[in-house]
């Protein structure tokens, strides 16, 4: 393993706010805020980090409602605020009001012992989500990460141990998680930049919430390594969950056998993570270091020691430097042995990240402070192991940072487990690692009309399904993005001036969503880093008149009234048509004078027509006469066609015979 050159990344930070210590579900709950106290105490005792050290501490702030809305629904956010505010006085409320709140709690996932209502849970969870968002923004140099006097002061790695609440869904709390901090942070990055994000989840449970949030998004590769869901929560995370639509191949799951130990685990991650990172080429990595994979953790059956936990963090560190300029955020995650495992596991993460060596021995004073807390819960931990079907272990409270190998003898089924994990890893490799990606998908039937537009436009097998580009305009940068998946469109909103057809921005938004959902359409958008859609180009199969013509696509463009004259139309059109299959296809655009925004542009019909011809002319479109009934209705209307140089001659002649065919409809 090559050690990163520490002088090349001067700043590494740990993000923390004292409010995060309020993320605590009460005394008998497995998730204890004490694990954070014990961690911070360990770091401070070893002089690895101190909250008062401005160089090592990244201050954070709560995520705004607008930011939380990138992932969570309005009704859920309202319920969390309401339930959190009334948690403390719930027992004192009148019966009817209490029942109403309990019903609401039940509907949003707070009705059971897993994620009970917690006082101020909105404020606390928003701070955690904000922490991961600030951390991601900081390493990417986005404004939300804070101002730094010089680029050298911008942190290149950030550890946010309070984050990693990966089970939260859009409108439901689940598995101890209220707001999905990593998903919110990733969605923010997608909205504010061109970056591609690699999410690696080492927690013993499947990272279902994060996977769900980006299941159709090829700009986020989610990789979750977890104990198989055959019986363990949340039950999902099968190898075959690969992503949907354009995001197919961008969700990777590695379900591991129960009682998997270090050797097999390390073999799997070293086998899979480097080729995945290489082929995806991320701009930033975010890793979840849930340490409920440890052999002592009461809630799962994986049997790792600090050796495998260290291998995880070393590997991610190396990948971050090799593939994305070091940009890396690590978050905490699960971990339910709050005194013996979590503080050591996350101190190892911080030590690796910050390049500070750890002493062999745990400080005696720290052990003295926390050993009694473990003794107090020791019996309950033992009982939990027993009912969960885990082997009893005699080891006591650790005295060293690294586990003693003789405390962790090989499990009886070691060979069988290793074989099963190897099999899983090879299946994942086959499914998710290029160049095996394409053959693993149903082979494209060359002559069948039933393939999606994406495949047609990428006949030559390019493997970047969705491109991004930044356009500098006098009004600031605008992001261009092609093949926008529905999840991205949901998180953006149309500019007010972008609705000359639909009249209302909400209606325009619904329309764009419908287009994004269609497999046979392509949607390219121009949007600001604040998430405002200012321009759109759609590619769709020709409608009724052109029915049945293969490889003929209608192009439509619109730019917001408020963003014209900045070159967005020309650039967005060029960007959307910059497809490898463009020379195989026929594109046409129809200009109907009654749709033109004569009022908004202040142009005459004639001038507008000229502008349209010039705009499309820049991409090689030519004007053709036609008796297509809509176009023929007004002499100002125009048909613009671009015939690709490699287009099939049979289709070209079919197309032009259609352009000038006698309409079945009576002429007006």
């Amino acid at each position, binding site marked *: 393993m090559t050690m990163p050159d520490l002088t090349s990344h001067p700043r590494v930070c740990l993000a923390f706010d004292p409010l995060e210590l309020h993320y605590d579900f009460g005394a008998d709950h497995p998730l204890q805020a004490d694990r954070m106290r014990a961690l911070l105490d360990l770091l401070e005792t070893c002089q690895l980090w101190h909250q008062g050290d401005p160089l090592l501490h990244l201050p954070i702030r709560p995520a705004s409602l607008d930011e939380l809305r990138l992932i969570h629904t309005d009704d859920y956010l309202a319920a969390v605020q309401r339930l959190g505010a009334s948690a403390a006085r719930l027992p004192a409320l009148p019966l009817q009001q209490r029942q109403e709140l309990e019903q609401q709690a039940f509907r949003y996932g707070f009705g*059971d012992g*897993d994620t009970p209502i917690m006082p101020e849970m909105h404020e606390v969870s928003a701070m955690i989500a904000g922490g991961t968002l600030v951390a991601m923004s900081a390493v990417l140099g986005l404004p939300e990460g804070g101002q730094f006097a010089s680029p050298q002061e911008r942190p290149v790695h950030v550890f946010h141990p309070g984050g990693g609440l990966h089970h939260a869904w859009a409108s439901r709390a689940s598995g101890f998680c209220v707001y999905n901090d990593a998903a919110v942070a990733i969605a923010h990055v997608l909205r504010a930049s061109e970056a591609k994000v690699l999410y690696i989840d080492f927690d013993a449970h499947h990272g279902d919430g994060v996977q769900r949030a980006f299941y159709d998004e090829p700009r986020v590769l989610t990789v979750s390594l977890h104990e198989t869901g055959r019986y363990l929560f949340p039950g*999902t995370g099968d190898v075959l969950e690969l992503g949907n639509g354009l995001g197919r191949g961008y969700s990777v799951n590695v379900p591991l056998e129960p009682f998997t130990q270090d050797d097999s685990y390390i073999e799997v991650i070293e086998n899979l993570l480097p080729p995945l990172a290489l082929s995806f080429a991320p701009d930033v990595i975010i890793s979840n270091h849930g340490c409920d994979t440890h052999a002592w953790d009461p*809630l799962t059956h994986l049997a790792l020691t600090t050796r495998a936990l260290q291998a995880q963090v070393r590997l991610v560190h190396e990948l971050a430097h090799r593939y994305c300029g070091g940009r890396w955020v690590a978050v905490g995650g699960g971990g339910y042995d709050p005194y013996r495992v979590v503080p050591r596991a996350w101190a190892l993460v911080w030590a690796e990240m910050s390049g500070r060596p750890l002493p062999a021995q745990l400080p005696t004073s720290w052990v003295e402070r926390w050993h009694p807390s473990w003794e107090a819960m020791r019996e309950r931990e033992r009982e939990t192991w027993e009912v969960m079907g885990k082997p009893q272990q005699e080891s006591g409270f650790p005295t060293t940072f690294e586990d003693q190998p003789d405390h962790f003898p090989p499990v009886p089924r070691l060979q069988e487990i290793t074989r099963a994990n190897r099999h899983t890893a090879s299946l994942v490799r086959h499914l998710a690692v290029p160049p095996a990606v394409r053959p693993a998908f149903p082979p494209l039937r060359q002559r069948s009309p*039933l393939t999606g537009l994406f495949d047609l436009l990428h006949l030559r097998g390019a493997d970047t399904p969705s491109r991004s580009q930044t356009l500098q305009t006098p009004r600031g940068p605008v992001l261009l993005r092609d093949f926008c998946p529905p999840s991205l469109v949901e998180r953006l909103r149309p500019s007010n001036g972008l609705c000359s057809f639909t009249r209302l921005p909400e209606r325009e938004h619904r329309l764009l969503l419908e287009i994004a959902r269609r497999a*046979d359409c392509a949607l390219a958008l121009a949007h600001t880093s604040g998430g405002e859609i200012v321009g759109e180009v759609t590619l769709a*199969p020709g409608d009724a008149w052109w029915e*049945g013509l293969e490889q003929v696509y209608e192009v439509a463009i619109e730019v917001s009234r408020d963003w014209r004259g900045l070159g967005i139309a020309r650039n967005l059109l060029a960007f959307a048509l910059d497809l490898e299959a463009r020379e195989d296809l026929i594109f046409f655009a129809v200009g109907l004078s009654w749709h033109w925004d004569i009022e908004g542009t202040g142009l005459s019909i004639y001038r507008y027509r000229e502008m349209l011809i010039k705009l499309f002319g820049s991409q090689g479109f030519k004007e053709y006469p036609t008796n297509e009934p809509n176009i023929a209705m007004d002499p100002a209307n125009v048909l613009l066609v671009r015939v690709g140089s490699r287009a099939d001659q049979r289709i070209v002649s079919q197309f032009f015979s259609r352009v000038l065919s006698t309409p079945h409809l009576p002429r007006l």
Partner: protein
Amino acid sequence: MLVKDVMTRKLITVTPDDTLGHAATLLRQFQFHHLPVVQGEPAIFGFTGAVKPLYLEGLLTSQDIDLAVAASGQQPWQERHVQEVMDRSPVCVTPTTSVSAAAQLLVERGLNGLPVVEYEQHEQRTRALLVGLLTRSDLLIALARALGAFEPGMQLLIPFTAGNPTPLARLLLLAAELHVQVRSLVVVPPRNGQPHTATVRLGTINPAPLLMRLQDEGIEYTFPDLALEERRHDNA
């Protein structure tokens, strides 16, 4: 479970006079494999409960189109009509057919989809009013839903002897007491006189409190396929 509980109600239909080009565009656009062919209006959308009733004329599948593409000679396949290649008497089910009967029908006849119709008497003729479509995917989704797969949860096996489901009943009472959600409960009929086993899916990441109560009450449970020790292969 009846066909009406799991069938697709949002239907995209074609008429016998539509072209295959049009049908192919619809199949591609909606990523379907079946198009019911109906009489009358050339409407694209035939949502059930729509104003006009739709009477089934036949069924067109993506395979029918692929065959037509492969066989296209002089005439381009896009210009041929749906009625030339559709199946004119597809096997149908009614909304109250049981899902198990429909599943058997699909498997035995090697079919992928069944139109769901209600029969009407009209001037001495029987007409098939189209109300839905049942595909293999609908059945698989119904199965996954029945197993609770769409809800986060963990799985537990509760063995009990036929005729005495008390352990199962105790488990459910304890789950209710501890506010643990039961996502699904599946009991497969015994084979070879083996005792019953119920597969229970519980909506919790932390089953330990419930498991401790089960243990206290002497109720046996296991995790599916969780074995620390070497598996015995003695029972053939």
